[in-house]
Structure formats: C-alpha cells, structure tokens
C-alpha cells in the first residue's frame, strides 16, 4: 500500500548531499588560483605589528575557528543525513517523530553557550584593542599630555602621552593636523614616528567618510559634526627603514570614492622630527609667498583692494 502510494516519486539515481564536497572543492580551486598573499585569505590584515591590529587579528581567528567548527558540524550533518536517509527501493515508512524536548532544550543551550563564550572572549580582548598603549621605548619624546574626549570614550594611554593627530575627511582627500607650537599639517600622507602611540581625532567637513588603513587596525567613520577616535603604534622594523601603509576610504562618499586614498608613512623618530621641521618650514614659506603675492597685487592695482575685500576676508 505504501509502496504504491510512493511510486510516482522514484528514488533519484544521483542523490544530492554533495554540498560540502562542492564547497570544499570550490575553496581548493580558489586557494590554488588566488594570487597575492595567501596569508590574507582567511584573516584580516595586520602586517604593521600595531597592537590593536594584532588584537583584532587574534580575536578574529578565535571566532573564525569556532565558526568553522559550527560550519563543518552543520554541513557534515546535512550531507550525511541527505545521503543516508535518501529514499531507496526498500525504504520503510519513516518513524513519525514530532520532537524531543530534552534534545531541543539541549541544542538551544549549546547554541547560547557558544555565543556566551564568544561574547566573553570579545570583552576580555576588547581593552587591548580599544585602549591605546603607551609609546614604546625609543618612540618620539612627547611633551604635553593628551586631552580626553567624551564622544567615543577612548581613554588616554597609561603614560598620558600620545601624538595626537586631527584627521579631516574631505571629498576626496584627507587632511592631517599635527600637534605642536608651529603650524604643521599634511594632505594624503600621514607621517608618524615609530614606536610612538598615535591617537586620531577623526571628523569630516562634508559627507561621511571612513578612515581606514587595513594594516593599522579598525576603521572609524569620519562624520561631520562628530569626533571619532582610534589609535595605533607602529613598531620599529629591524632595519630601521621607512614603512608605509596604504588605505582607502571605506564609506561611499561620492563620485571620487574609489580614488579616496590615504597613506601612513612611519619613520624613525629622528627622521620624523626632521620631516616635521621641513614641512613646517615649507608651510611657513608658502604662507609668506602667498602674503607676498597679495601685497604685490595690491600694490600694482590699488583699487582691487576694495573689490577683492570681500574675497580676502
């Protein structure tokens, strides 16, 4: 009777359940075919050695490993079930099971337990990622203590000192303002000394951007009217030579979004100071030249002062 009822639904000669195999196969193909650094296939960037980037990398690996266990568990259980219990010629009528309360409570608790573990690991590691460390020995000697801001509650480093940079996102460039007596800023490139804790105060003057150098840890949105914060500290490499890290705006900001790049150049502290002096000098000279040319223009066309008055103010 049962067999007759099921006749139109014949067992399939090519049973499914090869999903896992297909997936693993696809991975293998990708691994072989993928160019570039294979190390980055599975984990985020952290080549700089900045403690926050390394913290994120470690946290990711822990969560990813747990995720792989769940992934394999579900895929293998699914594939096994589909293959083992596919309809065969002599399949008996299946037992009509409607549930199993202890089992269901068990796997609900197991899922919850796993997430409690992930949450715990996250909170244990959060401090190392979120809170700036002090500069390492050999970093740039810093004079003034940093101020603390309320918006994202990023604390000051334990030493109370950091190189604090004001980051301003604009369509489509990044401006960096450095601390100190003299006026010092740069566009596109942020220049920093090795082994020195750099804290960033990030904002935008037009639309929302997102400041991100993948090798230096997480991104933070640059939002007009708000101040966002992050930090990094690039260790000095063995050869002591300049290192640079490229990044790209991560929030759609308009037509030039794909070309909204920025770069962090890290130098030995002495070279950083030399660069800072040169840059400040160049800025001063440029300002003087500007003033000079204005004076020259005003001298040549005295009436233009009146007309251009609104412009200049």
């Amino acid at each position, binding site marked *: 009777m049962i067999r007759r009822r*099921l006749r139109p*639904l014949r067992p*399939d000669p*090519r049973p499914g*359940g090869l*999903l896992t195999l297909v997936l693993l196969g*696809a991975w293998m193909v*990708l691994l072989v075919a*993928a*160019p*570039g650094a294979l190390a*980055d*296939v599975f*984990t*985020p960037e952290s080549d700089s050695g900045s403690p926050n980037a390394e*913290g*994120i990398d470690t*946290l*990711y690996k822990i969560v990813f490993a747990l*995720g792989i266990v769940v*992934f394999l568990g*579900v895929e293998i259980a*699914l594939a096994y*079930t*589909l293959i083992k*219990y*596919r309809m065969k010629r002599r399949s008996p*009528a*299946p*037992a009509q*099971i*409607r*549930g199993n309360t202890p*089992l*269901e409570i068990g*796997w*609900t608790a197991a*899922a919850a337990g796993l*997430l409690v573990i992930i*949450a715990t690991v*996250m909170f244990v590691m959060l401090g190392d990622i979120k809170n700036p460390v002090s500069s390492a020995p050999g970093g740039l000697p810093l004079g003034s203590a940093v101020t603390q801001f309320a*918006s994202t509650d990023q604390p000051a480093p334990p030493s109370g000192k950091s190189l604090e940079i004001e980051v301003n996102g604009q*369509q489509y460039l990044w401006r960096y303002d450095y601390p100190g007596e003299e006026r010092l800023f740069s566009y596109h490139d942020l220049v920093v000394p090795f082994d020195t804790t750099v804290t960033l105060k990030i904002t935008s003057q*037009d639309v*929302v951007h*997102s400041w991100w150098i*993948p090798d230096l*840890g*997480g*991104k*933070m*949105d640059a*939002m007009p009217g708000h101040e966002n*914060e992050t930090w990094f500290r690039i260790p000095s490499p063995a050869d002591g030579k300049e290192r640079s890290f490229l990044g*790209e705006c*991560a929030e*759609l*900001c308009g037509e030039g*979004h*794909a070309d909204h790049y920025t770069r962090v150049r890290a130098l030995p502290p002495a070279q950083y100071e030399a660069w800072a002096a040169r840059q400040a000098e160049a800025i001063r000279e440029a300002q003087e030249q500007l003033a000079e040319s204005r004076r020259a223009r005003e001298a040549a066309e005295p009436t233009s002062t009146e007309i251009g008055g609104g412009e200049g103010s």
Partner: protein
Amino acid sequence: MHGSERRPTGWLSWLGTTDHKKIGIMYLVSTFVFFLIGGVQALVMRLQLAQADNTLVDPQTYNGLVSMHGTTMIFLFVVPVFAGFANYLVPLMLGARDMAFPRLNALSFWLLLFGGIAFYVSVFFQPPTAGWTSYTPLSDDAYLPEGGIDAWIILIHLTGLSSIVGAVNFIATIHNMRAPGMGWGRMPLFVWTILGYSYLIVLALPAIAAAVTMLLTDRHFGTAFFDPTAGGDPMLWQHLFWFFGHPEVYIMILPAFGIISEIFPVFARKPIFGYKAIAASTVAIAFYGMLVWAHHMFTTPQPTVVLAIFAISSFVVAVPTGVKIFNWLATLWRGTIVFKTPLYFAAGLISMFVIGGISGVILAVFPVDWQLHDTYFVVAHIHYVLFGGSVFGIFAGIYYWFPKITGRMLSEGLGKLSFWTMLVGFNLTFLIQHSMGLSGMPRRIYRYPETGGWEGWNLISTIGSFLLGIGVMITVYNIVVSLRKGQRAGNDPWKANTLEWFTQSPPPVNNFDVVPRVRSVEPMRDIRNEVQKTGKPAGSVAQPVA
C-alpha cells in the same frame, strides 16, 4: 459548482481583479522581472570589476548601479516576492476563500508596481547614486541635487505603503480566517513566518517612512534634520534607517524559513521536528530582530557601552536561528528523503545560510567589525543571507508551488541543473569575496589598482556571477516551457500536508467548495489517510458530520 458565475478572461481581468490568486501571480511575475533587472545590474558591476582599473563604466554610473541593484533587490524583489507567495498561499493554507480585504490587497500590488516604475523612470534622467542606504549628508541636495534621490524617496514611500497595507491584510486574514479547527498550534509554519513578516513590516517601516520624509523636506523645503552645518545630525538618519533596515533583513529571511519548513516534512515523509520550537523561534527572531539595528553602526562615533549592548543583542538573535537549523536537520534525520528540486533548494538554503549566519556572528563581534565593516566581507555576508538564504528559499517555493499555481509540473531535470549551476556559481561569486574583504577591499568602489592583489579574486567572482546568472535563466526557461508543456500536476503531486493541496490545481476562484475541518498540523495528510481508509471521496471525508 463554481460555474455559476462566468470567469472573466483576458488581460483586463487582471487590471481590476481582487482575487488573491491573481494578485499573487502578478506580484510573483513582476517581482521576478525586477529580480532579473537587478541581476543584470549586478553582472555589469561584476564585469567592471573583473579587471583592475577597468573603464567599462564611469564612477557615477557605477554608483548608480550599486544603488539601483540594492534598492531593486530589497524593495522590489525579496520583500514583495514574499508578499506574492503569501497572497497566493495564505488564504489557501488557512482554508479561506480570499484575503480579509480583497480590494486593499489589489491596492498594495498596484502601489508596489507604480513605486517600481516611478523609481525606474529616474534612469532616464539621473539615477540615485548614494547606495540603497542613501546616507546623509551625501544624499542631501548640497551633494546630490539631481532627482534620483527623490525618485528613491518616492519608491520608499510607495513600496513601504504597499508593504504596510499588505501586512495589515495578512494580519487580519491570519487572525480571523483560519479554517474550523485550525488553532494557533495547527497553523502551517509558512503562515507563522508571514505573521512575523507582517508584524515586523508594521513596526519597522514607519521609521523609514519618517526618515525619507525628513530627507525630502531637507532637500526641498529648507529643513535641516540631517544637515550638520545647520544643527542637524547624520547619525539620526543612520539610526532611523537601520531601525527599519535590520528588521528588514528578517522580513526578507523569515518567509524563506517558512517555505523550507513546509518542504522538508513533505519530502522527508516525516512531520516537522519541533513544530512549537520553530514557531516560537519565528516569534523570537521577529522580536529580537527589532533590537539589533545599531550593529550596522559599530564604526560611528558612539560610546563602547552602546556597541556592547548591540553586539549582545545580535548574539541573542543568533540562538533562535540556530534552533531552526537544528530542527530542520532533525526533520530530515531518519526520514525517507525524496530528492525533488524543491528539496535541493531547501537543503541548499541550510548549507548556504549557515555560512551567512556564521559570518554574521563574526561581524557582531564589534572590534572585528571595525576591520571588516564596509568591505567585501560584508558584501559576501549579505549575499549568503539574502541569496543563499532568501533566494534559494524563493526558488524552493517556486518549484514546490508552481504545480499548484499553474496545474503543471516543472521539469525535474532542468530544475536540478539550475540548482547545481546556481550553487556552484553562487559560491564562486561570493566565497572569495570574504577574502577580498579580509585583505582590505572596500565595498562600492568602481575600480581598484593592480597593486592590491585583488584582480585574480575579482575575476573568479565575475566568472561565478555569470554562472549564477545562467543557473537562474535555466529556471526561467523551465518556467516558460513548463507553462505549456509541463506534465499535468493534479491536486496533490507531492503528497503534501497543507490545505492548498486539497483543492484543484490551479484552484477555482472560490478556492474551496468544501472547507475542511482541521484536526492536526497536517490536515491534508489526515484527509489522504481517511480517503485510503474509508474509500470515500476527499470532499466528503474532509468535513465529516461532527
């Protein structure tokens, strides 16, 4: 018996219809057309990204494609296609003769269609270019004065109204029009998910309706809700948008869960495992889904305690989702599994959605999100959820219910070919995108340099996307051919459990001449067993004299 009134024919009969089945078919067909349009947009983007520094499209065209693709797939395909399934099936599954408010039902379809048309008209002047999220201030008139954003606002209003009107209708129908004997504990699981879908729509969509109205007045009438130069705040937009936007994700996945919850017991020849747990987890997902919105904003300037709260609520919502997966596996376990195309797509949903679920938990760990937010890792994640989850569920539903809707079977051979092509194409396209994101490739960039090492991965992804497109077209071909040449289905080709299989295929205008009395979660199975036992016709055993 239902011949007393002449059935209207011709295309005019579609314009004025209030029949839930005709409206359902119009929903399904028009949303599927939007799906194909959105798919073509995706393929153009993939072509552009196949090579480093490609010049196929210019940046604003690319941003337009990004915005049109996302908006189309979400507002004109995934959300309304489930309204289409629900329109066709909820009254049939409940044993009702139509929806509670048939004319309101027609209104919600036409609002949707004209919302879509109003949006697509913008292609002829300037499509929106601020993404489907239209973040302010970029979407303010100071930066994008063109009409595209306004077309997008009109689309949000019309499709939003369509969804809310439809949701109210579903809620009224489900609460009031169940067949005699169908208590809450005997309602089909698909109907449970449509109930969750409808309540989420009613709760979440007003937030975005308010937000886009404020954006409209910011753009044209001098207000400054989101303008930081005049005291407004772009954070307000993001909060309002995601207060809608995250429930929207569950609006788009719950009905797919419902579809496969109907399919597994039928093709495993075994009742659903843990009916109550699945129904309860639907309610739990809908509830907690309202409380996780700021996990889209982990990189905005907010205190850590806010991030922590939203990370925890995101973990919590993963639990009922996991429970569903375990219950589906247990339903298949020790069953007699019949390998028909609906089962392939339903099993495909589990195996793909679990990847999206896991990457979702990874992204909920907010320090990790600081790295991965707005990268291709997130693109991969949403596609494992919305394609691997929702679209595989939609295709499972198409193969499962096509015989009921048209009276003809789809080709099994083409169906399986379509499934395998889509599965392989899908994974080729999106699995590698996790790695692209991990190695630092942001979303929504129209080009990337040769030096990043992303070119090979992008090429693989592009090849995969075309394979995926071919897989979809095989199903389109299958549908077109089977409409005329498919094998006759009969009332109940799958030996299914729910009431839509009790009536003819396609069902008559009044759905049921006899409304069956429901005695379990599987009323149709009860009727089949009774017919076998007593030898009487189905109509007379369905409603025995009490």
